[in-house]
């Protein structure tokens, strides 16, 4: 094999004023032209490692470092950040903080201009980079005029303009909708194939990227624990990745692992829907499908939310919600989906009274949306914001949870009892004297849920509960939501994570450009899927697989919404090869 383009050897790193190392004895080699996927739980040191690869650590950030990082054979410590910037480009998670210019053209030309390249060369690179990401049209626009997806592509273009041989993407899809994510990875694959750019992707949402990767690197507790080809990693370590590390793997991989436990081995081990379909089709003689009887849609309870022709426009003229008439019933888990900017959050803001409808009317638990105050509405409906930090108002976890009850003037003894109970339920009781902002990402998320849960509202809205969270955190939150739901709480999930929506919700609302383009049960949603006007809808892999198998003539394949649905329906009638795990063991491990 060729010489590695990046070589990390024995790297240990402590951030300034931190006692615990962020990286511990990391060894990793990245080869020219590779497409590497780096996964690991939140806070395991992935981003730190990325910063070490382009010299920001330790050249800019300081801190204590042991070991070496070589880029192109040169020790980063004896190089400069500017030099390394031309070799290793990083696209950071939040596009808003990394764009520091006013106009798109300046942003994309920023790096080359810093390197004092001639103006003509810069302009040529700007045009080329924008063409690569398909955004030539917005060259002269202001950064704050363009959409989130456009910002993200501009951030990528600004790295491409530096002509780096290595591009690192740090959670590129955290703020993108599913189609945007597919596009970004497609672009990276093209750069990788056509121009031989080495790609390193750090990502929680692995479904759209696993199939592109040449190698998968697992990180935990600041160190690399395993690296190998995707098939091999998942086949050998898939269970470990899901259950011990708490990460997601693509649904078809979960399926293959679960089927292997049942004694059905898919050959070759599939990474994509097409591969899984092929492997399953070739096994058909010995597979039997016993579709579980379709569960009837849950009967609708009384309507707790009802709107009629609801519309709202922002002062700048954006018509964010147009003529929305909907009904949400008691005891349902409803997913409100739609692409970024389709009006989901604005609709939610109308439901809790943060905005008042311009026209139309609506009620929440009998209260009119036009006249009820925020306080009246929020005594029936809780709202967990996308970024937990925004909602914190106190300086300890305990006070934070107690805050809502104090505002309601509940007696102190009762407050103490309820707070302790809620903290226990969410597993944050040992943190009760800590400052909320000092918690980990997952803990902050749970705390923000706790502050709403304790109020025992009839309805709870969760805004993008999965953003930037690993699977374990998401599962934790959703378990709590389901428990609340069993006790009768109506849950509204605002999300563009289709796997999550399909797994948990009984009903769907789809928004597109401010309009409600669909409302109905899960089965209706899938039946009408292709007619629904929305660019955000990407089918869960497992549903696509079942679809594909039926197309291949396996008419008995049931509709499957989750991996478990599918696995439960399959049995092996004549095992071709003797299998060790023939006894149907645990088939869980369904990722959200």
């Amino acid at each position, binding site marked *: 094999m060729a010489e590695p383009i990046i070589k990390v050897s024995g790297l240990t790193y402590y951030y300034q004023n931190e006692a615990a190392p962020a990286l511990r004895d990391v060894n990793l080699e990245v080869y020219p032209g590779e497409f590497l996927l780096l996964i690991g739980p939140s806070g395991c040191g992935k981003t730190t490692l990325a910063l070490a690869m382009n010299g920001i650590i330790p050249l800019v950030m300081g801190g204590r470092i042991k070991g070496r990082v070589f880029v192109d054979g040169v020790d980063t410590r004896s190089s400069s950040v500017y030099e390394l910037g031309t070799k290793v480009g990083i696209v950071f998670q939040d596009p*808003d903080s990394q*764009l*520091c210019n006013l106009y798109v053209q300046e942003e994309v030309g920023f*790096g080359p201009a810093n390197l004092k390249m001639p103006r003509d060369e810069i302009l040529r690179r700007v045009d080329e980079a924008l063409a690569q990401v398909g955004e030539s049209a917005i060259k002269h626009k202001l950064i704050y005029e363009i959409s989130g997806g456009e910002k993200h592509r501009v951030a990528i273009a600004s790295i491409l303009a530096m002509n780096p041989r290595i591009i690192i993407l740090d959670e590129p899809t955290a703020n993108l909708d599913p189609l945007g994510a597919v596009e970004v990875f497609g672009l990276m694959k093209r750069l990788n194939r056509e121009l031989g750019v080495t790609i390193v992707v750090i990502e929680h949402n692995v479904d759209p990227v696993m199939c592109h990767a040449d190698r998968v690197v697992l990180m935990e507790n600041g160190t690399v624990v395993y690296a190998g080809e995707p098939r091999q990693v998942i086949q050998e370590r898939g269970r470990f990745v899901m259950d011990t590390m708490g990460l997601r793997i693509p649904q078809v991989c979960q399926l293959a692992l679960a089927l292997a436990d049942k004694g059905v081995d898919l050959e070759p081990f599939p990474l994509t829907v097409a591969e899984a379909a092929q492997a399953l089709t070739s096994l058909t003689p010995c597979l039997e499908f016993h579709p579980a009887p379709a569960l009837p849609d849950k009967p609708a309870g009384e309507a707790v939310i009802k709107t009629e022709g609801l519309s709202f426009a922002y002062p700048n003229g954006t018509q964010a919600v147009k003529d929305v008439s909907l009904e949400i019933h008691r005891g349902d888990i409803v997913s409100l989906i739609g692409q970024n900017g389709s009006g989901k959050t604005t609709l939610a803001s109308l439901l809790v009274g943060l905005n008042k409808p311009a026209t139309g009317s609506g009620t929440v638990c009998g209260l009119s949306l036009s006249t009820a105050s925020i306080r009246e509405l929020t005594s029936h409906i809780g709202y967990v914001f996308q970024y937990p930090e925004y909602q914190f108002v106190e300086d300890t976890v305990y006070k934070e949870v107690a805050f809502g009850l104090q505002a309601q003037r509940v007696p102190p003894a009762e407050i103490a009892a309820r707070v302790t109970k809620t903290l226990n339920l969410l597993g944050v009781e040992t943190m009760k004297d800590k400052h909320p902002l000092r918690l980990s990402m997952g803990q902050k998320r749970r705390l923000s849920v706790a502050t709403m849960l304790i109020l025992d509202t009839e309805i709870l809205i969760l805004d993008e509960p999965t953003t930037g969270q690993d699977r374990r955190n998401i599962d934790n939150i959703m378990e709590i939501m389901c428990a609340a739901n069993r006790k009768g709480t109506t849950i509204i999930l605002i999300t563009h994570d289709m796997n999550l929506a399909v797994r948990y919700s009984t009903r769907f609302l789809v928004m597109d450009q401010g309009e409600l383009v669909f409302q109905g049960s899960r089965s209706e949603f899938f039946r009408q899927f292709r007619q629904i006007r929305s660019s955000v809808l990407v089918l869960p892999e497992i549903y696509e697989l079942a679809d594909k198998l039926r197309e291949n003539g396996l008419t008995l394949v049931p509709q499957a919404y989750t991996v478990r649905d599918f696995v439960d329906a399959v049995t092996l009638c004549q095992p071709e090869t003797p299998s060790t795990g023939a006894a149907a063991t645990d088939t869980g491990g369904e990722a959200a």
Partner: protein
Amino acid sequence: MTRFTYLKGDSFFHRMDPVMKMIWNVAVLLAAVFNFDPRYSAVWFVYLLATAMFLAKIPFRQFVRSLSAFLVFAFFIAFWKTMYYVGEAHELLVWGPFRITREGMLEGVSVFFRVLVICSLSIVFTLTTDPKRMVDSLIQLAHIPYRIGYVAYAMLRFIPLYENEAQVITNAHMIRGVGETGQSLKSQFKLYSTLLVPLLVSGIRRAQAAAIAMDSRAFGAYDTRTSIEEVRVTRADVAFVAVHVLVCIAAFWYFVWLGHGIRYYG
């Protein structure tokens, strides 16, 4: 917001180099204050009104809307001058503590127009100047270090983000019941202090992220950097500004040096 922010457009003033425009601004400002004759100030105001209409192509209504913000102030100061003229003067009306004099009135009118002149200048400037071009021009023509220029960029870039963030945080807090507990000073204080902490935390985080992103793209590699858009000072810009500078010097020479101007009415 739109009262005093850059309005995209195409006019002589929109095209003019911002640093040249600043020089024009100062020249007109000085020329207008060298003489206290109210007719003189009024002429300058009318001249600026015409400039705004024809050379800067600012819609009349927009101009008036921006100017109206200062009218109260202008009236107040003119009223004050009229009422409280100190010194010998021709009394027109005396009523209790009020004393309206001819000199006071003339001075009031003069001050009124002076305030309007100053406001018109800044309106014409801000409405026709893209802040980005101004920073570019300061870097390229006035040789301000580009690192300082980027501080200005960062402010222009991030202020709308912070405004938006502050709104989201306020919303998040309102849902939690902050600020609704009462209108007392204590709860109002709580509202702002709870807003400040997350805003600061995210501000610091954003600044760090921005700094890392800039360093990664070689910001600060050299003492200068290529300017993607070259600042162009046209002959028309130079001629236009030169005429005004000359007028300014002439006004100084005639009204101040030779003393033909009216300093105040005595």
